[in-house]
């Protein structure tokens, strides 16, 4: 009989005072992840939370789990080492748009390519907050910041597209101010075997306040976001009267029952579709022509690196005649001096 674990959110709170700015989106994400962890039925000591550098990367200090606040950009590599050393652990990586996509870009894509079983929570506030307001790799072209006084002259990364390009198997998106939905997404990410990337559209109340407001405002949420669920039609809107169809190879927003559009014409979301074409189109949707896609967009079961590593070791052990260092050292070309 497995023991029953009746955790609540409180079991995952540390004694440390949370020091993010009042109103910062990070507070809600912290709550969402703590709730998700309590629901997962995993032993408390088997969680490890690894972060890089940036506001969000203070996260481990506010968790009562094992935690490691590391260095800028390297959380993906360090978390990879933790997971491969002990695949029984549930490893979460907390990172931001600067940490994961600028200084840590290489580790981010290679971690995804390997499909190591990590849950990467990518806080995207489109700004460098901890260094007080410089543009990040997700800042929109032309945006004025302290280091782009005349506006940036570069295009941003779309995190989900980068994930797909790196061969990603799981990508989801949520918004900091939608706690219930975020929590569901975090749980889905944790249950998925492989690298799960969750992009959280997060508000920086000090240096980039309102950057996601057009998307996240609860008043227009149903019109501006589409909540995707595997196996369900892609429908959105206050009256749930709008949907997505494929028209000449491209996504198009339609009104159901108008212009001959029947409910069965609406696309059914399939997170397991290996070919990333439709997932890429969903990830790329933006206002005002489209709602922004939320929820689990892609979840394709694939070979997992840390499992494969364990399997190779088990296979080598079962086949090899060498099972100790003494045997190793006396194997091969040796000779005895009498």
């Amino acid at each position, binding site marked *: 009989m497995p023991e029953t674990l009746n955790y609540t959110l409180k079991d995952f709170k540390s004694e440390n005072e949370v020091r993010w700015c009042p109103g910062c989106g990070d507070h809600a994400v912290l709550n969402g992840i703590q709730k998700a962890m309590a629901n997962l039925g995993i032993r408390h000591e088997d969680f490890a939370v690894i972060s890089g550098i940036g506001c969000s990367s203070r996260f481990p200090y506010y968790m009562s789990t*094992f*935690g490691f606040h590391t260095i800028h950009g390297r959380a993906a590599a360090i978390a*990879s080492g*933790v997971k491969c050393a002990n695949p029984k652990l549930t490893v979460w990586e907390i990172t931001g748009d600067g940490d994961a996509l600028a200084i840590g870009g290489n580790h981010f894509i290679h971690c995804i390519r390997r499909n190591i079983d990590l849950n990467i929570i990518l806080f995207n506030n489109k700004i460098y907050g901890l260094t007080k307001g410089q543009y990040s790799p997700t800042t929109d072209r032309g945006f004025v910041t302290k280091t782009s006084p005349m506006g940036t002259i570069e295009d941003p990364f779309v995190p989900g597209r980068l994930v797909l390009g790196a061969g990603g198997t799981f990508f989801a998106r949520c918004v900091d101010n939608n706690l219930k939905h975020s929590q569901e997404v975090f749980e889905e990410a944790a249950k998925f075997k492989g690298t799960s990337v969750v992009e959280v559209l997060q508000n920086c109340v000090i240096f980039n306040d309102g950057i996601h407001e057009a998307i996240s405002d609860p008043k227009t949420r149903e019109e501006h976001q589409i909540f995707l669920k595997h196996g369900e039609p892609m429908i959105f809107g206050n009256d749930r009267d709008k949907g997505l169809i494929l028209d000449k190879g491209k996504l198009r927003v339609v009104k159901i029952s108008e212009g001959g559009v029947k409910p069965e014409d609406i696309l059914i979301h399939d997170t397991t579709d290996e070919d990333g074409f439709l997932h890429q189109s969903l990830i790329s949707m933006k206002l005002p022509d489209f709602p922004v896609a939320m929820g689990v967009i892609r979840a394709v079961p694939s070979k997992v690196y840390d499992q494969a590593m364990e399997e190779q070791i088990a296979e080598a052990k079962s086949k090899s005649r060498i*099972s100790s260092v003494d045997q190793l050292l006396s194997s091969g070309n040796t000779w005895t001096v009498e």
Partner: protein
Amino acid sequence: MSIETKVIELEEVSIRFSGDSGDGMQLTGTLFSDTSSLLGNDISTFPDYPSEIRAPQGTVAGVSGFQIQFGNKKVSTPGDLAHVLVAMNPAAVKANAKFMMPGGTIFYDSDSFNQKNFEKAKFKTEDPFTELNLLDYNKVPVPITQLTREALKDLEIDNKSILRSKNMFALGLICWVFSRPLDYIEKYLTKKFGKKELVLESNLRVLHAGYNYAWNLQHMTPRYVVHPAPIEKGLYRNVNGNYATAWGLLAAAEKAGLELFIGSYPITPATEVLQALAERKDLGVKSFQAEDEIAGICTSIGAAFAGDLAVTSTSGPGFALKSEALGLSVMAELPLVVVNVQRGGPSTGLPTKTEQSDLLQTLYGRNGESPVVVVAASTPSDCFHYAYMSAKIALERMVPVVLLTDGFLGNGTEPWKVPKMAELPSITPRIAKDASKFQPYQRDPQTLAREWAFPGMDGFQHRIGGLEKDPSGNVSHDPANHQLMSEIRRDKVDRVVDMIPDLELLGEDSGDLLVVGWGGTLGHLDTAVREMHANGTKLSLAHFNYIKPLPANTAAVFSRFKNIVVCELNLGQFVGYLRDKLPEFKYHQFNKVQGLPFTIHELKDNFLKLMEE
């Protein structure tokens, strides 16, 4: 009718195999070395190869060499100069003329001595030996290409494969000259090519053709005999420094009851450490070829956090990239072994050549007050011991340890008396036991080492990181706390002194001249000092394997000598460190940065000069 062959008995002899980097000279040299070890000779080898995998054929830049010295007494170096050179083309003669013993013997492939190859090797005339002033040498032309072709004429193989087996002809020839039997080489080839009958057949035929050719033409060349060396009883094998390093780490993991994780990125000349561990999944090794040097150390730091014996291997440029993360392991106080197989620098430098110029980078190359333990191996086989000790120190003192080896040690081989696990010192990792009392930065009052608790251990949940912490593990920006913690991290490294042996002297206990060295120069320094001793010159050698901290008796040893000369393959890094640590002594220095080991000759010259002053 038989012709009397002149047989010369030698105490030691040095041979250099040399050809295009595609000619298989490294394999030829390795097989010859292994054969000599099996005959009971002591050996030392030195592969000398270009960084290009296949530089333009026939050019001096593309020459790959392998030098071996073997003898009937202890052999500590591959030899300053070669008695015998095997040259597969004119470029090989040009590249190696300066490494030849005056009056030595040169076997060369006369088929390759043609106009085209003279031009490629940039000879101005058609007489390379005169041009290189090699007139007093015993030059033996052998039509290796033609004879190889002849030996294989009835086999259905292509021209490329024929040319590829030329090295076996050279090997067979040299085996006869040095009275080596072929059985070991035959066994090796059978194992390697057993399933490819034609390849096996052609290699064996050419090998024998070379051997028989030398036998038939024995009047051309003297035959050498080198008797076995008196060696301690036991089980032996040949090992190079990179394998010895990898196996030392494996031994440490087994002794400590931990799993071994290596996160690493391929870099010359350190790659083989990663390869040697990747081969050992049967011993549970988790080998992770990372996307870059930074991820190499970072995955290892993650594995250390998760409770493995974690190591990363690299060479100078990669070590530079790892600096920031090494600082994290200093701050987080996690056990970690970083192996730096040094090469010529700075920047890309001389990737395939040896140097000791990463010492200052290792000691000081990080932001902040960031002390690490620094250990240096000094022979190919003692890489095993120092890798083992590096892991022991890291695990027992919760501190990163950098093990310095170099290209000369990493690639060089020597016979090694295989140790037994039971003979190795115990390793007791500081794994936390009592959750009710655990605090991440609580320390052993003697050693200052903190305890190690990792994910999965119930009740030990805690947070660590790169920010300064107070003893309870909370983030602290308190000025006094930072000073305290900085001093603790320094003292923790200094107190490792109680784990390391005293400095030992070769030669007199006191006197006029103390030769000081560290790391991979031991073989050369030891040989030079012994030879001078044998000639009645009184001098001593102190060789360092523990750099930080220094052995406790260092000052006491230094104080007994009038003069100290510090010899190293850089422009004076260890001597600078000693001037800082022990300023009460006056140091001479002898430095070389040519990507090559010292020669015994230049060392002796220098010591004599110093003693005459």
